[in-house]
């Protein structure tokens, strides 16, 4: 059974409206033979009915009625395909600035960001905004796909210019791994098959790159972190004394015998056993969902974090973070919001907005008094409960949080902790 030993790559598209993201995903699915006949027939029929000259491959992912009517993507579409050794989860995100929150949704879990630019236009404010978001989200691998090469005569000069423009911009960002690929999503050049029009390009096709990019090393296997989700107490005769702490390992490797501390209480104990369903296992690492048992009867509940005694986060109520603001009412000092960090929820007070980031110039505007919708800034918060947090640069799970508007219940901010 192939699926049982394949690995997994999650990637998200990014870039301005109409740069060809959805078309590219359609092309990728089509050329990798991941499209079913009935799906293709449906989009061929729609394209023909609309009087298009060619089949609009974006219709393969633009699944909502309003998306098809407007010809744009509004919300993330998740698509799946697999090659013999790897399964891919694609988040095709919208380019329209109004739907940036949905782009952030799709990119937050990605291992790789695929930024498209239209070769005729080069970088736009929106491509820069998305590159900044991908870098803030610490998406470890980045591909810049210079698309619509068919419309610029497959010109190497155009490619070189955009390449230079982007690498110059990227020096100010945190981009650990970058590949720049000239493609035509519509015609298929360098997507799955090598282009016959760009002999000057010797790099990989997009598919080849996606299949081979090395993702296993992107996790933190040093700093053990186990946010407790749920306490399992069977209350049955057979398992009368069973008391296990269930959760998903957020960092490091945990083993029976490890000396651990429970935060925020600071009580210490030893791991006596780790269960994975009905089996005891010898070690647990991210992203395993397991149940941990401790030797001592210490008080542990949801929201606590188990870590190693000599390597634990310091509980803190003062948070310094980059925030992506996602709602039309601006974020302002003194505002109160609900906060969810790992399995812990509390309330947060906005103490200060240190600066707003200009996504075009990366200039830090320190005069700002608020963050508007789709803006990014550095903010200081004070929380009602101590958070057991790490810098986001060290751990994407224990370094992230969401902010929730208490009146509407809507998620309004995405936070990445500095440090």
């Amino acid at each position, binding site marked *: *059974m192939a*699926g*049982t*030993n*394949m*690995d*997994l790559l999650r990637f998200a598209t990014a870039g301005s409206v109409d740069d060809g993201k959805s078309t590219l995903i359609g092309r990728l699915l089509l050329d990798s033979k991941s499209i*079913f006949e009935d*799906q293709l027939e*449906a989009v061929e029929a*729609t394209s023909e009915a609309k009087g298009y000259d060619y089949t609009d491959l974006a219709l*393969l*992912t*633009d*699944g*909502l*009625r309003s998306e098809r009517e407007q010809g744009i993507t*509004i*919300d993330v*579409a*998740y*698509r*799946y395909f697999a090659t013999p050794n*790897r*399964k891919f*989860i694609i988040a095709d995100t919208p380019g329209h600035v109004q739907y940036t929150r949905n782009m952030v*949704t799709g990119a*937050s879990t990605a291992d790789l960001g695929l930024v498209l630019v239209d070769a005729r236009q080069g970088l736009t404010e929106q491509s820069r905004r998305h590159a900044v978001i991908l870098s803030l989200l610490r998406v470890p691998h980045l591909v810049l796909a210079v698309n619509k090469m068919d419309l610029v005569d497959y010109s190497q000069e155009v490619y070189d210019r955009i390449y230079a423009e982007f690498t110059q911009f990227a020096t100010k960002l945190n981009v650990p791994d970058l590949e720049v690929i000239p493609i035509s999503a519509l015609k298929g050049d360098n997507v799955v098959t090598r282009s016959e029009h760009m002999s000057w390009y010797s790099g990989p096709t997009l598919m080849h790159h996606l299949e081979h990019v090395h993702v*296993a090393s992107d996790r933190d296997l040093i700093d053990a972190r186990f946010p407790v*989700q*749920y306490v*399992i107490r*069977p*209350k*049955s005769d057979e398992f009368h004394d*069973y008391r296990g702490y*269930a959760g*998903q390992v957020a960092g490091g490797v945990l083993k029976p015998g490890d000396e651990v501390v429970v935060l925020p209480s600071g009580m210490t104990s030893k791991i006596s056993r780790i269960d*994975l369903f009905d*089996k005891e296992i*010898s*070690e647990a*690492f991210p*992203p*395993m*969902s397991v*149940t941990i048992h401790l030797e001592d009867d210490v008080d542990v509940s*949801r929201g606590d974090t188990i870590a190693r005694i000599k390597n634990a986060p310091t509980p803190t109520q003062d948070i310094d973070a980059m925030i992506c603001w*996602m709602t039309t009412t601006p974020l302002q000092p003194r505002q109160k919001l*609900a906060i969810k960090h*790992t*399995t812990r929820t509390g309330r947060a007070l906005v103490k200060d907005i240190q600066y707003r980031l200009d996504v075009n110039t990366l200039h830090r505007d320190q005069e700002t008094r608020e963050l508007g919708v789709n803006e990014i800034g550095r903010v200081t918060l004070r929380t009602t409960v101590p958070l057991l947090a790490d810098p986001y640069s060290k751990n*994407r*799970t224990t370094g*992230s*949080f*969401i902010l*929730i508007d208490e009146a509407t219940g*809507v*998620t309004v901010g995405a936070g990445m902790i500095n440090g």
Partner: protein
Amino acid sequence: MQSMSQTHSDYRLSQLDQLEAESIHIFREVAAEFEKPVLMFSGGKDSIVMMRLAEKAFYPARIPFPVLQVDTGYDFPEVLQTRDNWVDRLGVKLIVASVEQAIADGIVVDDGKTSRNRLQIGTLLNAIEENGFTAAFGGGRRDEEKARAKERVYSHRDEFGQWDPKNQRPELWNLYNGRLHEGEHMRIFPISNWTELDIWDYIGREGIEIPSIYFSHQRRVFQRDGMLLTESEHNPLRDGEVAEERTVRFRTVGDLTLTGCVESTASTIQEIIEEVAVARVTERGATRGDDRFSEAAMEDRKKEGYF
């Protein structure tokens, strides 16, 4: 048989183990944060995988919520049998919301034209409201259909049970937001990221019981709208239709008057996996009359409150 070995020199999890871990995480979040969850259990392969994941998430404790089945009155007996076996083995409480009862009580109206599938919506929403459920797990997968491909793991429903696809809450990392107002509920899709092939790989790996109609068998069937439907008292033959015996299996199970089968000799999980791997038509396109009416059929039903 578990593929998980005792030591991992390279600390890698296969994609299937990663999917399992993600789904278990979702089950535990919901059990911890919602007052009254329920698992929508049809007895089909996706809801069986959900049950298995829920079993693992809380083991050795019982699954801490009941399961709900919407009985169309047109369900395959083999599926109901499997449902009962699962419910008995895990000792969970089963609530059956019957479409026929809902019709009798005037909760939904059977005008003779509306399919049972559509009548399920009102029946389901009524059961959720009556029992005060605040979260309902569904076995929807994003690879099934392109409106589903757009849906969040936590999918918010207003007080009318409706989904607003143009205005979904952002959903970041694995930080799920379960806030609700009075009367609203959340649909939870813990196997969002699983594909049809993943489901089969997992069923094979776990060695769990599924309804026999997923495997090749002899059945009297007839052609309608390009589908092979089962002969049944609920589905009288129309003019020109003839039933004959064929060797078939089902790729999905639902209302038997609308769920088609495919000709197949696949009689083991391994053979099903081989068949699915080379299939050229989606499982719903091939076999679900309810999805074939228009490009937006699923989106429209989902907005109203369908699974």
